C-alpha cells in the first residue's frame, strides 16, 4: 500500500528524507519538480496509471467500435439491396429482393431539423438574453434552472404530449393555413392535417430550445463587463449595448450552441416517431400527415425487421452517425478555438 514511504515524511528525520527523497515520484506532474531525480514508479503507482490510461483508451475504442460494428452489419444488407441506397425513396428491406434507400429519410431529417432550428434559435437567443441581461439576477438564475429542467424532460414525454395534446392546436392551425394560404405548395394538400412535419418540427424545436438557451446564456454571461460598461458609458441603449458588446463577443459560442442543437435534432428519435405521420416520398408539404426521418424510421421499422431489415436500419444509422459526428466535431472545433482565443486574451 506504499505506507512505508508515506510515513517517514510526517516526521522529517534527515536520514528518512535522504532515503525517501529519490524514491518518491518525480515531481514532473506538479510542473515545478524538475530538480528531483526521475525515479521509477512503484508497482501500485504503475498499475493505477495503467488503469487510467486503459480507461482513457476505452473512449477511443468505443467510438472506433461503433463505426466498425455498424459497418460490419450494414455491408451485407447494402450488398443485398437491389436499389440505389442514396436515392431510392422507399423502405422495403424485408422483401425477397430488398429495396431500400435513404432519400426520403435524409430529406425528412434535414427538413425537420432545419425547421426546428429556424423556430428555436431566435426564441432561444431571446430567452438567453432575457436571462443574462434583462431579468433581475436572482430571477434569471431561477429561470435558468427551470430551462435546465426542461432539458431533463425525456423525449418520450414530449412525443406523448405532441401526439396527444399539441396535435390539436397544430391541426387547427394547419387547417387555417390551408384555408387561407393553400395556394402555397407548403400549405397545400387536402388533409388530414396534424401529424405532419410541422408538428414534428415544433416539438423538436421545444426540445432543442433548452440546449441552445443554456449554452448561449453562458456565453452571454461571460461578456467582459468592461465592454458592456464602455458601451453604456458612450450612451448606448440596452439593446445597442447588446448589439455592439454582447452579440459580437458571443457569436462563436452561439454558433457552437446552434450546431450542438442541430446534432440533437438530427438524432432525435422517439419524439419524431410519435409525432410524424411516417410516409415515404419526398414532399415539401408541411401540414398534411406524413414525414419521416432516419432515426424515427429506425424506431418504427425495427419491430418487423428481419436480418436484412436490421442491416438496412443499421446502414441508415451509420449515415446518421457520420452526419452527427461531422456536425459535432465542427461545433467542438469552434468551441475549442474560441477557448484558446478567450484564454489568451484574458
Amino acid at each position, binding site marked *: 500500500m*506504499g505506507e512505508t514511504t*508515506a510515513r517517514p515524511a*510526517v516526521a522529517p528525520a534527515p536520514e528518512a528524507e535522504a532515503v525517501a527523497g529519490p524514491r*518518491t515520484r518525480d*515531481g514532473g506532474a506538479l510542473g515545478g519538480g524538475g530538480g528531483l531525480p526521475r525515479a521509477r514508479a*512503484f508497482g501500485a*503507482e504503475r498499475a*493505477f*496509471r495503467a*488503469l*487510467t490510461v*486503459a*480507461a482513457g*483508451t*476505452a*473512449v*477511443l475504442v468505443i*467510438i472506433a*467500435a*461503433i463505426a466498425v460494428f455498424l459497418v460490419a*452489419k450494414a455491408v451485407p444488407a447494402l450488398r443485398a439491396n437491389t436499389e440505389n441506397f442514396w436515392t431510392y425513396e422507399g423502405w422495403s428491406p424485408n422483401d425477397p429482393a430488398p429495396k431500400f434507400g435513404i432519400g426520403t429519410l435524409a430529406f425528412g431529417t434535414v427538413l425537420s431539423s432545419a425547421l426546428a432550428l429556424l423556430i428555436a434559435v431566435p*426564441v432561444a437567443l*431571446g430567452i438567453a438574453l432575457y436571462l443574462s441581461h*434583462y431579468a433581475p439576477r436572482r430571477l434569471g438564475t431561477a429561470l435558468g434552472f427551470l*430551462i435546465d*429542467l*426542461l432539458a*431533463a*424532460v*425525456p*423525449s*418520450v*414525454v414530449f412525443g*406523448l*404530449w405532441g*401526439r*396527444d395534446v399539441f396535435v390539436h392546436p397544430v391541426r387547427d392551425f394547419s387547417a387555417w393555413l390551408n384555408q*387561407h394560404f393553400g395556394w402555397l405548395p407548403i400549405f397545400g394538400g387536402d388533409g388530414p392535417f396534424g401529424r405532419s412535419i410541422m408538428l414534428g418540427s415544433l416539438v423538436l424545436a421545444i426540445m432543442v*430550445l433548452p440546449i441552445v*438557451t443554456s449554452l448561449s446564456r453562458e456565453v452571454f454571461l461571460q461578456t467582459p463587463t468592461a465592454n458592456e460598461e464602455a458601451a453604456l458609458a458612450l450612451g448606448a*441603449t440596452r*439593446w*445597442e449595448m*447588446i448589439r455592439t458588446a454582447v452579440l459580437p463577443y458571443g457569436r462563436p459560442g452561439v454558433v457552437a450552441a446552434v450546431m*450542438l442543437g442541430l*446534432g*440533437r435534432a438530427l*438524432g432525435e*428519435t*422517439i419524439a419524431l*416517431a410519435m409525432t410524424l405521420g411516417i410516409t415515404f416520398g419526398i414532399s415539401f408539404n408541411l401540414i398534411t400527415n406524413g414525414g419521416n426521418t432516419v432515426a424515427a424510421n*429506425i424506431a418504427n421499422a425495427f419491430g418487423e425487421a428481419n436480418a436484412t431489415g*436490421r442491416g438496412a436500419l*443499421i446502414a441508415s444509422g451509420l449515415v*446518421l*452517425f457520420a452526419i*452527427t*459526428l461531422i456536425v459535432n466535431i465542427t*461545433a467542438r472545433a469552434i*468551441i475549442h478555438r474560441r477557448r484558446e482565443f478567450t484564454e489568451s486574451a484574458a
Partner: protein
Amino acid sequence: MTTSVAPRPTRPPDAPETLRARRLPRYAPPAVALAALLVAAALAYGTGAGGPVLVVVAAALLYLVGLFAVANVVEGRRAARDRLWSALIHSAFVLAVAPLASVVWTLVSRGAERLDGDFFGTSMNNIGARDPDGGAYHAIVGTLMQVGIAALITVPLGLLCAIYVVEYGRGRFAATIRFFVDVMTGIPSIVAGLFVLAFWVLVVSPVFNDGRPGFSGFAAALALSVLMLPTVVRSTEEMLRLVPAPLREGAYALGVPKWKTILRVVLPTALPGIVTGVMLAVARAAGETAPVLLVAGGGAAINFNPFQDNQSSLALFVYQQAGDASRYAPARAWTAALTLVALVLVLTIAAKLLSRRNRLGR
C-alpha cells in the same frame, strides 16, 4: 478664506426640459397593449377570420408595431428600437414557458388518472385490449436495473478516464481523448442502440445463448453506458480541475505517492461535484427510449434477470402504450410518463441542490 463657494445649482426650476430626453409615460405600454387587443379583437371577429388565438397573436404583433411607433414619435428612433427588442426578448420567454406549462399541466391532470396501487404493483402480463387495469411494475423494475447496471459500468470507467485526462494525460493523446469525449456527447441515442444491437445482441451474446440474439436488460444497460460515459467524464474532469493545486502539493510534500493522493485527497475533495454529474447522467439515461427499444426486447412480464430474456423500461412502456390501440392505454402511458418525469426531476433537482452546496463550485 472668505470666498464662499456658490452652491452647485441642482436643476433650477426654470431649466429647459430638453436637457433630458423625453420619455414615454409609464402608463404608455399597457395602454398600447389594451388598444392592440381591442383592435385585434375587432378585426378578427369583424372579418370572421378567426377566434381567440388569432386575436392574441394579432394583438401581440399590433402591440410591437404600436409601441415602436409611439416610442419613435416621443422618444426617438434609438429608444424605440430598444423598446422593440426588449419586448421581443420578453415575448420569447413567454413563448417558451407556454409549452412547458402545457406539458406539466397535462402530465399532472392526465397522469393522475391511473395513479393507483395497481399501476405500481402489477405488470402488463396477460392484460388484453379490453382490460382497464395493468401496470408498470415490470417497467419500473427494468428501468432501475438497467440504469443501475449502466451506472456500475460507467462510474469507474468514467472516473478513471477523467483522472487520466486531468492528472496523468499530457500531449496529443490526452487532447485526443478529451476531444472524442466531447464528440461522444453528441452521439444520438438511437446510434448507441444500434451499436449495442450490432455488437452485443447480434454478435457476442448468441455465443452463450444457443445462437439466438440475446435481447436483454443488460444490453440496454450497455447502450445507456455509451450515452452516460461522456457526461460522467466531462463533469468529473471539470470537478478535478477545480481541486486546488496546493492540496495535491501538500500531499506530495508529505511523500504520498501520486495514485494515493488522487484517491485519498483529490477524489474526496471533488466528490460532491462528481456525484452531481453522475446523477445528471443517470437522470438522462433513465429517460432514454430509443436504445432500450432496440436491444431490451420490451416484454410485458416482470423479469428480474437482466441477463436473460426481454425486459422493459418506463420510457419504453410509455412509447408502447402510446402506440397501443386499447382505449385504456393512453391513461397508462400518461401515468407512466408522470412517474418517469418525477423520477428524472427528483434526480436532477437533487443533483443541482447538491452542486450548490459544493464548496468547489464556481
